[in-house]
C-alpha cells in the first residue's frame, strides 16, 4: 500500500506514530546490548568491572584485543573454522546441486520414492549415539572428515533448491537442449549451474553460517586442541571460564588480571562475531530471498 497517497486523519496519525514508537523501542532493545558489548570491549578493564560503562567506551584501550590476539588457540581456532567452513560448504553445494536437479525433473522415474527417502530423515533419526558410533567406526574421529561429512547435505536446502529449479528453469530449455543433443550431465554443467547463481548464493550462505557457528560436532568428534574450531575455543573461554593463566602473566595484580579477563571476553565476542556482522548487510537480501523461496513450498 506504499504506492498510493492517502489522507491521514488524526487517528491515523496517532496510529502511525504509535507504530514508529513501538518499532523504535524494539529496535533499541536489540541494538543496545550490541553497542554495549562493542563499547565494553574497548573500554578500560577496571571501568568495565566497576560498571562505569553504560553506552559509550570509557578511557578507550585495545588491551582486550591484544590479549585475544596473543592467545594461541584463538588464532588456530579461527584458521580451523575457516578451513572447515570453506571445505564443508564446498561439499555441501556440490551434493545439494547433485541431489536437487534430478529431483526437480518430472521425468525422473521413482522420484517420489527417492524424495521420501530424503524427507523421512528430517522426521526420524537414529539419534546421537548411533551417529557417534558410525563416525567412530568409520575412523573419522579427530579428522576433518568428521567436521564435513556427517552434515554433507541438508534436506531442507535440497528442497529449496529443487523448488528454485522447478520454478525458474522452463521445460523448453531442457527440450531445446535435448534436441541439440545435449545430455543431462552437460545440461547441468552448461545450463543449470550458470543459471542458478541466486540459489547457490542463498544455500552457500546458509551452509557457511551453519559451519561457522557449529560447535557440537566438534565437541564430540574432536579432542585434539590443534583441531578445535573457533566455537569450541569460545566455549571454553566464554562459558567454561577457562582463561589460560599463561596469557595474562605480565600482570601481577590479581584484581587487574580479573578485570582483564572480563575485558578479554567482551573483545572475544566482538572478534568472533564481527566477520559475519560485516558481511551480513551485503548478503542480507540473499537470506531474505532464501526464506521466500522456502516459503513457496516449504
Amino acid at each position, binding site marked *: *500500500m506504499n*504506492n*498510493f497517497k492517502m489522507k491521514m486523519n488524526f*487517528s*491515523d496519525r496517532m*496510529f*502511525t506514530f504509535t*507504530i*514508529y514508537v*513501538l*518499532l*523504535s523501542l*524494539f*529496535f533499541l*532493545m*536489540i541494538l543496545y*546490548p550490541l553497542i*554495549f*558489548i562493542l563499547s565494553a570491549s574497548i573500554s578500560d578493564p577496571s571501568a568495565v568491572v566497576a*560498571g562505569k560503562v*553504560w553506552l559509550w567506551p570509557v578511557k578507550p584501550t585495545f588491551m582486550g584485543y591484544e590479549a585475544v590476539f596473543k592467545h594461541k588457540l584463538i588464532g588456530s581456532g579461527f584458521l580451523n573454522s575457516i578451513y572447515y567452513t570453506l571445505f564443508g560448504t564446498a561439499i555441501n553445494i556440490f551434493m545439494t546441486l*547433485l541431489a536437487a536437479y*534430478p*529431483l526437480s525433473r518430472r521425468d525422473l522415474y521413482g522420484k517420489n520414492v*527417492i524424495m521420501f*527417502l530424503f*524427507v523421512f*530423515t528430517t*522426521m*526420524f*533419526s537414529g*539419534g*546421537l549415539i*548411533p551417529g557417534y*558410533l*558410525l563416525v567412530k*567406526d568409520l575412523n573419522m574421529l579427530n579428522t576433518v572428515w568428521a567436521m564435513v*561429512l*556427517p552434515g*554433507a*547435505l541438508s534436506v531442507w536446502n535440497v528442497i529449496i533448491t529443487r523448488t528454485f529449479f522447478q520454478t525458474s528453469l522452463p521445460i523448453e530449455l531442457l527440450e531445446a537442449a535435448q534436441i541439440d543433443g545435449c545430455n*543431462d550431465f552437460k545440461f547441468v554443467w552448461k545450463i543449470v549451474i550458470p543459471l542458478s547463481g541466486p540459489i547457490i548464493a542463498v544455500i552457500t550462505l546458509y551452509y557457511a553460517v551453519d559451519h561457522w*557457528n557449529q*560447535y557440537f560436532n566438534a565437541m564430540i568428534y574432536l579432542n585434539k586442541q590443534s583441531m578445535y574450531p573457533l*566455537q569450541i575455543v*569460545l*566455549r571454553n573461554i*566464554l*562459558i567454561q571460564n577457562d582463561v589460560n593463566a599463561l596469557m595474562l602473566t605480565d600482570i601481577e595484580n590479581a584484581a587487574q588480571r580479573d578485570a582483564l579477563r572480563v575485558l578479554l*571476553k567482551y573483545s572475544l*565476542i566482538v572478534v568472533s*562475531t564481527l566477520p559475519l*556482522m560485516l558481511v*551480513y*548487510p551485503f548478503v*542480507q537480501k540473499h*537470506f531474505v530471498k532464501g526464506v*521466500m523461496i522456502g*516459503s513457496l513450498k*516449504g
Partner: protein
Amino acid sequence: MKLRLNKIMRVWQLYILLSLPILYIIIFKYVPMYGAQIAFRDFTVSKGMWGSEWVGLKHFIRFIHSYEFGKIIKNTLILNLYNLLAGFPFPLLLALGLNYVRVRWFKKTVQMVTYAPHFISTVVMVGMLFELLDTRNGIVNNLLGLVGIQPINFMGNPDFFKSMFVWSGIWQSAGFSCIIYLAALSSVDPSLHEAALIDGASQRQRMWHIDLPSILPVAIILLILSMGSMLDVGFEKVFLMQNPLNLRTSEVIDTYVYKVGLVSQAMNYSYSAAIGLFKSIVGFILIITVNQIARKTNQASLW
C-alpha cells in the same frame, strides 16, 4: 516391464547424479537408524554392535521407571511450549508494524538491526548472556542496582532458566522470523486496501481486518508445524546454559542422552540410545499428527 526399464534408461544420467547424495543419505542417516537397535541390546565394546546380547525393552523400561524420567519430560515439554507461545507474537507484530512504515531508511535500519542477532552463534549468544547477566559486573545487575535491587544470580537460579532461554531466543530471532510474514504481507491484494480506504477505513481497521487475517493462516500453520518438532528445540543452547545449579529445570531429553552416553563415567551407549530412540519415535508421531491437523485446517502441509 519393458516400459519401466525404458523410463529408467532414458534418465540414467540423473541416477548417476543422484548416486552420491543417496549414498550419503544411506550411510549417514539410514545406517544410524539401523544402528539404533543397540537400544535393544546390551552394548559392550568388546562384542561390538552386532555381537551384543538382545535384551528387548529393558533400557526403555529402565528409563520410564527412572527417577529422572518425569523431570526430563516435563522440562522438555514446558521449555518448548513456552518458547513457541512466547515467541509466536513478536515476529508477527514486527511484520505488521514494518509493513506500515513508509520512511524507507527507517524501515531498512530497523530490519538490518533486528535481523543481525540471527547470525550470532549459540556459543557467543550464551557467552553474552553470561557477561551481561553476571552477578558481580554484568550490566543488567548494575542497572538493577541503580533502582536499589540486590544483584540477582540469573544463571544459578533454576527458576530463571526457562525465561532466560526463551527471551534471549526472542531477542535473537524475532527479527529474522518476521521475514516470512513480510513476504506474506507483500502478497496481499492492494485492491483490498483501496476498497477499504474508499469506505473510510482507518489504518488500524485495515491492519486488523485486512493484514492480520491475511497472514494469520501462515502464522497458524507455522505454529502447528513447529509443534511437531517440540521435542528438539535448541539443544545446543540448553546445553551451554546448563550448570549444576540450574539442572533441576534445565535438563531436557537431548542433554540427558548426551550425558548418559558420552560424558558419564560409566558410558552406557545402549541406555542412552534407548532414550534417544524413545525421543525420535515420540517426535515422529508428533510430526505426523501435527501435519495431519495442518492439512485438515489449511491444505498446507510439510509434504
